[in-house]
């Protein structure tokens, strides 16, 4: 699903965020990306979603060379990747329903199909009753689950999450991770960046560890 071949990323300021990173994440796999802050976790995720382009090396997503993707084809890529952010990135002037429906509208879906799929996604994250609420009226954990519903509503084959439990207490964090595991069970490839080592160990999944831009652990595929 995801292949990195000797990928380096140097930001215009000269900071080298990734150095020669290579790994492969198979279809339907679930893995955690860990490392101290500034190790390059966010950069790695951004390269996958084509939010940044690699300075050197190749990033392949489902066989697609993301680094060379023409600008006008980026939307097609992003529709196939659900992204969950630490700060949710919900639109606060829209209801939960409208927030979750956004990826469908953007992809040109209309009519009753939208309502059905939004409710299915909200049901999966346990927020079916909150569709008319505005994000500010929800707790942090609920907002994060709305973010997850939005990421999966389009049924993307790949789900990325950047510190999805960063602001949540351990109990809620476990719930959120269990949710990701559930999506993985139905075939979604999941890659989660987090610094919550205890949680990662409790989950017992493949770990990719970054240190100062280098992949120091987990490059070899899990059996």
């Amino acid at each position, binding site marked *: 699903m995801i292949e990195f071949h000797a990928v380096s990323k140097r930001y215009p300021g000269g900071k080298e965020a990734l150095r020669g990173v290579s790994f492969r994440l198979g279809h339907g796999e679930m893995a955690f990306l860990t490392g101290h802050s500034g190790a390059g976790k966010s950069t790695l995720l951004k390269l996958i979603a084509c939010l940044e382009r690699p300075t050197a090396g190749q990033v392949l997503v489902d066989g697609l060379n993301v680094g060379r993707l023409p600008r006008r084809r980026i*939307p097609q890529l992003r529709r196939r990747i659900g992204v969950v952010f630490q700060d949710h990135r919900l639109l606060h002037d829209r209801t939960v329903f409208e927030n979750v429906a956004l990826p469908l509208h953007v992809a040109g879906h209309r009519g009753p199909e939208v309502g059905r799929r939004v409710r299915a996604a909200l049901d999966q994250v346990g927020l079916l009753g909150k569709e008319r609420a505005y994000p500010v009226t929800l707790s942090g954990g609920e907002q994060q689950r709305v973010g997850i519903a939005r990421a999966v509503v389009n049924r993307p*084959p790949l789900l990325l999450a950047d510190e999805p439990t960063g602001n949540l207490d351990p109990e809620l964090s476990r719930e959120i991770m269990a949710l990701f595991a559930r999506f993985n069970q139905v*075939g979604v490839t999941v890659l989660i960046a987090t610094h919550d080592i205890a949680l990662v160990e409790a989950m017992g999944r493949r770990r990719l560890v970054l240190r100062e831009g280098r992949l120091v652990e987990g490059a070899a595929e899990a059996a």
Partner: protein
Amino acid sequence: MAARGERAAGAAPAARPRRLRPRAWLAEHRDAAAGSLRRLAREPLSSLMTLAVIGIALALPAGLHVLLANAQAVTGGWRGEARISLFLERGVDLARARALRRELAARPGVRAVELVTPEQALAEFRRLSGFGEALDALEENPLPATLVVTPAASDPQALAALAARLRALPEVEAAQLDLEWVRRLHAILALARRGVAVVAALLAAAVLLVVGNTIRLEIQNRREEIVVAKLIGATDGFIRRAFLYSGLWHGLLGAALAWLLVEGALALLAGPAARLAELYGSAWRLAGLGAGASLTLLAGGAALGLAGAWLAVARHLREIEPA
């Protein structure tokens, strides 16, 4: 993954490239148009203020255009009544003058000929000038017989040619064509038309900038939304569309407001204008914008709004990228 993914609600196996079918395309445009309109209605006060600026800027050239069109209508009526006065030689007697009147009336290019005898001319002069007593002192009537020719043609060149032919008649001492004032009036109207065009061009530029700035602010205010939309796979076209429709609505609604302003102002002027026309014994009435000019106003407003939005979108939308 695909086999498992399809069964459950979790994942779609592959993205089907969406070809834009006409109905889907229409639906997207309808949604974008309705969404922009709703956004406009959500902040009625600030929207109304922007629309008022656009409306006034468009009302000014539209109003001037209407006034000019009315002025042309009035002078058009006068031009049709251009007359050539033929002052006959003093030796020409009344019988010869009557014969000449019939002869001229039969000419092509002449609609009617009226004979004013020296006596009639004197009576009229006495009545209009107030020099009655002074005229009584005269021993004989100093006024010649006059033939007043109403030409069929109305354009200044044909009139001048006809006057020249009539002046060449042996019985005619002088031919006076009241044409200079027509020419001058036409020159003034041409100048006014050019002036209105210049004002219209300047105000059109103002509308362009007002809409451009409004859309620029809207783009800034919706920055977060644009970022999120791009993150979840919105095309540039999808995002652009919302703002272009916003510009279109601003222009169109501003033009509608301008139409109301112009028609309202004309309604206020119609009564006094009609009274003035009555005093001149004219059936002329102040004309409104009419269907053609109204459509031009609305279409022009919409086009300016769209163009203004395009300027803003082209400059500012590309700068906003998720990071």
